[in-house]
């Protein structure tokens, strides 16, 4: 490589780094803008253009959110749904994946086929809605937890992982007369921690972000989840229904509607940010598991 090439290489690296910084900035700026907006007072919030900082930070938008009982309640409902669905789903998926990982089990292909077909073909919105109604789950948080508990895709991923565990590990326990259930609990599950973590995070993130089921199955406002409140406030401009102005004289000191919206976005993404290091690690792992299944 001559000197001209190496100089050109350095220039290329710089251009590349600059473009990637631009990409990162484009990704981050909208979040940063909302973060600053959420702390801005009335005057700053209505300013147009780039928003990199605010001179007079105020917590009033966050106070407005905290003083709204329905918003707090919706966070609790979301937590209930995430925890409930993750526990049930993880247990069901792990329990079902183990037998399906045994290629020699008679009728394995039939059972696997049932799950695969459900992955490719669904009844659709209305038939599912009618079923939930028939089961009496309308306006119950169970309508958000139970239907999504058995995700065929997660099951296949877990089955493939279990297949990679050598049978020889189970042999000795089998000779000692341990039942399959015991082998599952004391040998297979401890070895499956990475895939369990992956599936748990998949379910948890999907449940935290899910809004459509909650939108159509839940009409009781005390059972709304965060995403539904977000949708009503961010996209349908129904903020007045959730935050109450206590004293009209205070209106000048209150944050703008836009700031309250921004604060709400910040608070509702906080759980995702909190587990983000794990998400990055296990989701990346999971995408590989999905890529080499076969």
């Amino acid at each position, binding site marked *: 490589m001559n000197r001209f090439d190496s100089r050109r*290489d350095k220039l*290329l690296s710089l251009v*590349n780094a600059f473009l990637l910084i631009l990409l*990162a900035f484009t*990704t*981050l*700026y*909208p*979040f940063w*803008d*909302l973060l600053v907006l959420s702390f801005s007072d009335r005057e700053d919030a*209505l300013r*147009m*253009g*780039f928003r990199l900082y605010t001179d007079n930070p105020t917590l009033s938008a966050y106070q407005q959110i905290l003083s709204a009982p329905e918003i707090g309640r919706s966070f609790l409902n979301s937590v209930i749904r995430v925890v409930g669905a993750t526990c049930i789903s993880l247990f069901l*998926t792990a*329990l079902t994946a183990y*037998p399906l990982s045994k290629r*020699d*089990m*008679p009728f394995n292909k039939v059972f696997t086929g*049932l799950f*695969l077909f*459900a992955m*490719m*073909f*669904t*009844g*659709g*919105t*209305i*038939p*599912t*809605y*009618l079923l939930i109604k028939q089961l009496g789950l309308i306006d119950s948080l169970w309508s958000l937890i*139970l239907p999504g*508990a*058995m995700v*065929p895709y997660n*099951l296949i991923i877990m089955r493939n992982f279990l297949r990679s565990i050598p*049978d020889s590990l189970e*042999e000795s326990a089998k000779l000692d007369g341990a039942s*399959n*259930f015991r082998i599952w609990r004391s040998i297979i599950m401890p070895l499956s921690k990475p895939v369990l973590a992956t599936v748990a995070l998949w379910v948890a993130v999907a449940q935290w*972000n899910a809004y*459509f089921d909650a939108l159509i199955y839940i009409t009781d406002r005390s059972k709304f989840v965060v995403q539904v409140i*977000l*949708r009503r406030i*961010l*996209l349908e401009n129904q903020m007045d229904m959730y935050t109450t102005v206590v004293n009209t004289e205070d209106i000048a000191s209150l944050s703008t509607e*836009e700031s309250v919206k921004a604060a709400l*976005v910040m608070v509702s*993404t906080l759980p*995702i940010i909190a587990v*983000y290091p794990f998400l990055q690690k296990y*989701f*990346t792992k999971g*995408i590989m598991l999905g*890529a080499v299944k*076969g």
Partner: protein
Amino acid sequence: MPPHVGGQQGILVCKGEPIMSKAKSVALERSLQLRDQKPLLKRMLSYRDMYLMMIPGLAFLLLFQYGPMYGVVIAFKEYNIIEGIWGSPWVGLANFEEFFSSAEALQVLKNTIIISFLRLAITFPVTIIVSLMINEVSNNAFKRVIQTISYLPHFMSWVIVAGIVINVLSPSTGIINAAIKALGGEPIYFMTSNFWFRPVLVLSSLWKEVGWGTVLYLAAVSNVDAEQYEAAIVDGATRFQRIRHITLPALYPVMTIQLILSMGTIMNAGFDQVFNLYNEMVYETGDIIDTFVYRKGLVEMNYSFSTAVGLFKSVVGLILTVSVHLITRRINGGEFGLW
């Protein structure tokens, strides 16, 4: 004891070195297996607790995935609440005829396919280019920062991303319109413009998913032998030549799979995104099959009609997915199917 093929491998393998040819060992395994073959009932009995373990999972599957499939019959009926799914009168294909003879059918089908293809045409190449760019970074700390930041929006719900998009594109306070005004232009009402709605869809999904999309490609690149690059440098290959002749070919398999996979989901134009971003003003360019099904069914309460349209979409989707699976399997010689 059930025949465990894996367990028998111990006989054939010595200190991890195979002592007979693979074909021979497979043949031996098969003969051992055949000798072990017990009657079906006996084999099933030996798996009885395995079957018991599957019962809860199967119950959930049958109730929540197959239960709604029964409800699909209302696509061929005129559903009314009093008579229920079974009691409502049959109408044959009337609901399908109504859909296909309506002006909306053409519009939502057209929108669905156009939006899917536009998104693919932009997202697919841009993701590859960004992967190549990230791969060229030699400083690992910088690389990790870029990856960490660019993956972030993938984990946000479309409700939140829609809120962000509306904020960024707002005609009064949005940064884009601030720039337009600063340059002396008139503010653009992006969210209510039939001209802008599709570009907004494509660009916002690019913004959300481009970083995450690089994961698979970067994994494929990491499998390339570093010696190949060293040899290329010795031979005097420029950076672009190395990308063109080493990195890019390493990505071809993933590219093929990704491209074929997206063909299987062409009927899904992104319900969550469109549903959270669209409004009556942009039905003309933005209303897709899924949003149409939602409105007809849950807003207008036209259950049978909505189910029929949804069923049409599901069947086309199923045919596409299965074909794609068969193609993928053929390309990879049975090594890499979708399941």
